[in-house]
């Protein structure tokens, strides 16, 4: 799949066409962006079936909400990735809530066996070489806060509690980490085009 620069004319034009009810445009937008969205959802939810369900929900939302897409707020890719991330984290939280309350659901035998939890980032990193390459260029402390937030859906104060660090430190690391990542990814994008 060729990389699409965020906000490139084609994806913006496709969203406009989708907003007007163009099914072919939807099909093309899906082909262009679904692998990126699915990669992200899979990183949050290990269970492939749950991930496929979330992907379908996300793109159904794309079809329904395209008329409300506002290019001033960001690229269509960002619009999509934020939705995919939110939905995947929502699903992860509902799975965790179910685990935590431990009120035996009818399908408990199924849920207990399914590896739905957020995978250990270190384990996933092995089979996700490229994300690893980008994240590996961050200092460990910055990488950790971004992973906990983006792939596990922890809030800033939850991260502070988890790591036993002051909230202010977490905030600063998050900002510095994203800054650094922007530099790393920017270099890759330049070398790809």
């Amino acid at each position, binding site marked *: 799949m060729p990389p699409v620069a*965020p*906000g490139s004319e084609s994806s913006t034009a496709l969203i406009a066409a989708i907003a007007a*009810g163009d*099914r072919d445009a*939807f099909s093309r937008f*899906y082909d262009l962006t*679904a*692998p*990126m*969205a*699915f*990669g992200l959802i899979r*990183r949050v939810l290990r269970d492939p079936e749950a991930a*496929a369900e979330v992907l*379908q929900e996300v*793109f*159904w939302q794309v*079809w*329904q*909400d395209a*008329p409300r897409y506002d290019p001033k707020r*960001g*690229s269509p*890719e*960002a619009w999509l*990735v934020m939705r*995919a*991330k939110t939905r995947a984290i929502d699903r992860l939280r509902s799975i965790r809530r179910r*685990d*935590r*309350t*431990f*009120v*035996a659901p009818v399908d408990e035998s199924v849920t207990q066996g399914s590896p739905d*939890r957020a995978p250990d980032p270190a384990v996933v990193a092995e089979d*996700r*070489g490229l*994300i690893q*390459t*980008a994240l590996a260029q961050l200092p460990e402390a910055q990488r950790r806060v*971004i992973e906990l*937030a*983006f792939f596990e*859906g*922890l*809030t*800033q104060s*939850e*991260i502070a*509690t988890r790591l036993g660090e002051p909230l202010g430190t977490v*905030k600063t690391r*998050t*900002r510095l*980490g*994203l800054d650094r*990542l*922007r530099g790393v*990814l*920017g270099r*890759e994008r330049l070398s790809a085009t």
Partner: protein
Amino acid sequence: MNRDEIDELAAAYALGGLEGEERVRFEALLEAGDPDAVRALRDCEDTLVGLAAAAPESPPPAVKAALMERIAATPASVRTLPRRSRALWPVVLSGAMAAGLAAVVVGWSVSSTYEKRLDALVQSAERLRAELRSQQAVIAILRDPATQVVVLAGLPPAPGARARMMWHAQAGGVFVATGLPAPPDGKAYQLWAIAGSNAPVSAGVFTVDAAGTGSLAVRPLPGVAAVNAFAVTLEPAGGLPAPSGEMYLLGKS
């Protein structure tokens, strides 16, 4: 607010981890169209897009097939159109021929500004409603005379620990604990309800903050009528079906 602060808020917001007053403050900046906030958020989101794009994965073909089928079966009129204005376009357009496009363009941009503001308000109202519902559930439990309060005392691993369980057999309960040590990596505390001579039933897993305080909302436990005791043990992070670790707290009702 300086650049760094805005960048910090934007980074946390893009990652989905901004809460409370800071979230309200940042959303207000976005609503107001603050150029620094909008730019900072775009930068962060584009970075995260880059991160997602670095590890694409082909989705199963069935997903697209199902979507295309669902879309083909949806008449265009059923789709969620932007509230109010979009559905009025045909009317508005014909009127525009006479009234002059300029007026419509102004009206459109004003109404879309209000729509966005309204959307933000609706979302924040929904969040507040959800919060209110959970608070009301807690208050209802506290006010019910059938609610028992069980005091749990610390055992040898944490003699200073204390906890209270406000328990209502039909409505569930609220559990709060203090003075517990932070669980080691991969471990968490698990609360158990013990009824008669039956095996303990899990009432959930919780962890504690840096101050050693933790809490848990407990749903009613099906099949558990009268609880004689609550206990807390240290277990693997996801909890176990039966207690295996050391007991930290115990209280009889």
